[in-house]
């Protein structure tokens, strides 16, 4: 009900301001429904077409809900990942827009809550990562870190190093890391798990071992 109302308001608002995203104006929920139903059956091409067609609709909704362009773009990608995760909840034959709107609104609310939580509880301090006030004192620790890290990651396979780098260092999502590396999401998970296990073991070993 609420999501349907928001979708209707969005369309009215866009019509009033005279600059609707092309796909929002052209594509109707019926076409999207057929594409999404085909995607549920495993049709990758239909799924790609559905996500591409729905992207402007999601982006327009996210921009209205979010405080900044940057946050809206994060929400858009979060919505795409959520759609992928819960695409089985779409009931073929029903309108797609209320379903998509509910997901987008929820993800935008989550992003807003996360932003306010970070603002109220976290403070950025550029000196917080230094262990000592004297820069010279930090140099020794700094120079030792690469050696420790090299020791921890020495016996990781190429796939494990890549999985750790993309997901844990660059903070990509599994789907993003999968797209970049070519590894499947399942193998990324396995590689990360095994890499962390090996690194933990290497860290616990004494240098003489």
């Amino acid at each position, binding site marked *: 009900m609420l999501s349907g109302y928001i979708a209707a308001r969005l369309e009215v608002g866009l019509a009033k301001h005279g600059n609707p995203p092309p796909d929002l104006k052209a594509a109707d929920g019926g076409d999207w429904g057929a594409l999404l139903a085909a995607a549920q059956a495993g049709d*990758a091409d239909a799924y790609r077409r559905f996500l591409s067609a729905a992207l402007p609709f999601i982006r327009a909704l996210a921009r209205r809900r979010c405080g900044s362009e940057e946050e809206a773009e994060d929400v858009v990608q979060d919505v795409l990942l959520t759609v992928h995760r819960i695409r089985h909840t779409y009931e073929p034959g029903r309108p797609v827009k209320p379903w998509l709107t509910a997901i987008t609104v*929820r993800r935008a609310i989550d992003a807003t809550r996360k932003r306010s939580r970070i603002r109220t509880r976290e403070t950025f301090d550029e000196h917080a990562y230094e262990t000592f006030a004297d820069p010279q004192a930090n140099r020794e620790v700094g120079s030792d870190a690469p050696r420790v890290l090299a020791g921890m990651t020495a016996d990781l396979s190429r796939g494990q190093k890549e999985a750790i780098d993309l997901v844990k260092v660059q903070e990509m999502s599994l789907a993003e890391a999968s797209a970049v590396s070519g590894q499947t999401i399942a193998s990324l998970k396995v590689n990360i798990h095994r890499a962390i296990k090996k690194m933990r073991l290497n860290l616990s070993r004494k240098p003489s071992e």
Partner: protein
Amino acid sequence: MTRLPDAMLIDALAADTRPVRPLAPPLKRAAATLAAVALVGAAAVLAAANLREFRSLHAGREVLLALEMAAALATGVLAITAAFFASVPGRSRRCSLAPLPFLAAWLLLSGVGCYRELVAGGAGTGSFSGHPEGNSQHCVLFILGVSALLAPPIIWRLGRAAPLEPLSVALLGGLGIAALSAFLLQFFHPFTVTFLDLGMHLIAVLLVIGVAGVLNRRTLVGSQKAPK
């Protein structure tokens, strides 16, 4: 957060797609779940409840009892149905309010029943139908125990939708489970309900809803599996 270009993310998601079975409509899923609960509940009542004693205990107040039990049952059925609707994105949220009038009627009718018993039995006697005070704790244990038995299959069914708002789904589910447990309790209640007893029933119902609310994310989101 590092972001991929949208086109690349869409390609990755499309490459990862595999057939998934769409969930059945929420009404159908709720009906199937409630039918299973009804079967188990009916079997338990027929096997373990003393229906002759139940009838004689409530002789003279059958209509009030029937209304009270119907209100409790309607609260449970509608709350669980509403939880199934709330678990799916984009479905009407109006049905989340549907159990509330029946909840109010249930509480009101229970209060009326207690008042009539109090007037009929005499104030300050401390017991009715020969049962001493303190038996209310068994009612609390009954509601909590039956709720604990009903909760896992219902939570599992609700979790299949991976609800985006697990708290509201958990609260509705908790209310439904507690109301159905309280409905079943009537068949096993050894004495007519007193105000003290009603208060204990309410505490048990609130406990079930509270536990469901506290565990919402862990139980509902945790019980989902990746679609196959």
